């Protein structure tokens, strides 16, 4: 499938926010499965207070969603969305349910499908699983691929 370096040939995100380790399954035009391992050595855990309980170790929901969307990159690209040399921008998200925390030692599996692909815009949906259990349901996320010149001029049109 795709390792981290191969993913970087498609996705524009780089360290410290390149949050996808591997693509393990890819049905062109339909769905993709990408994984990201979570470890306590990540920057997001750097300031967890020593006296905090274990519930403070939940992987940030924000980063989980970012990782999920990055899994969609190769799927969207192979489906015709031109993302190379583009700036990817969140347009909207909704119908997202966080069912269980993700903890250090877990491996997130992002199961992503394309719901709609329009000119420069992709609508995604799917699930995040850990060891076969759904931990997050993603109803819809809309991402736009815009030319760098257009983004320099501002708004994020759908």
């Amino acid at each position, binding site marked *: 499938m795709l390792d981290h370096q191969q993913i970087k040939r498609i996705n524009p995100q780089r360290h410290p926010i390149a949050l996808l380790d591997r693509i393990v399954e890819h049905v062109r035009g339909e769905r993709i499965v990408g994984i990201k391992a979570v470890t306590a050595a990540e920057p997001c855990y750097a300031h967890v207070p020593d006296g905090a309980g274990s519930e403070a170790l939940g992987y940030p*929901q924000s980063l989980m969603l970012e990782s999920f969307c990055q899994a969609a990159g190769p799927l969207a690209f192979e489906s015709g969305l031109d993302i190379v040399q583009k700036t990817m921008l969140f347009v909207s998200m909704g119908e997202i349910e966080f069912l269980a925390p993700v903890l250090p030692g877990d491996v997130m599996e992002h199961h992503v499908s394309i719901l709609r692909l329009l000119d420069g815009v992709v609508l995604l949906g799917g699930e995040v699983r850990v060891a076969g259990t759904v931990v997050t349901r993603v109803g819809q996320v809309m991402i736009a691929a815009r030319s760098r010149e257009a983004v320099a001029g501002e708004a994020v049109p759908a």
Partner: protein
Amino acid sequence: MTHDTPQPRRAAAYAGIDQWHRTPAGAAWHVDLQPDEPVFAGHYPHEPILPGVYVFESLSQGIEHWYAQHGLEARVQSVRSMRFLLPFRPGHRLRIEATLPPRACPGSHPVSATVFRDSEKAGTARITVRVQEARHA
């Protein structure tokens, strides 16, 4: 008016609040985006833009702080809708005004918020938070 500078009490993408204060409708807070914010190096190397999920992170932290002041623990349970209207770059002020429930108590509660980039409207959010009594290690 008392301003707080809360730090995340849990794993977090970044410290998403510089100043926080109560309002009649709930609370408001902001973070001034610095050029050396680590995420900008990778998002993106060609042009630093704050990931949209970082707006969500700041939103979550501000809500959690309001409930923490009442001895409660809150986590986002669901995102009904969130819209991102303008990109954020180094030098911008990300400001959030949240309408919170009239009483802070355990349970599931709706929260709505408006996001501003400096003085411009930059986004909206409608979420549900799950609230419980704070646990101690």
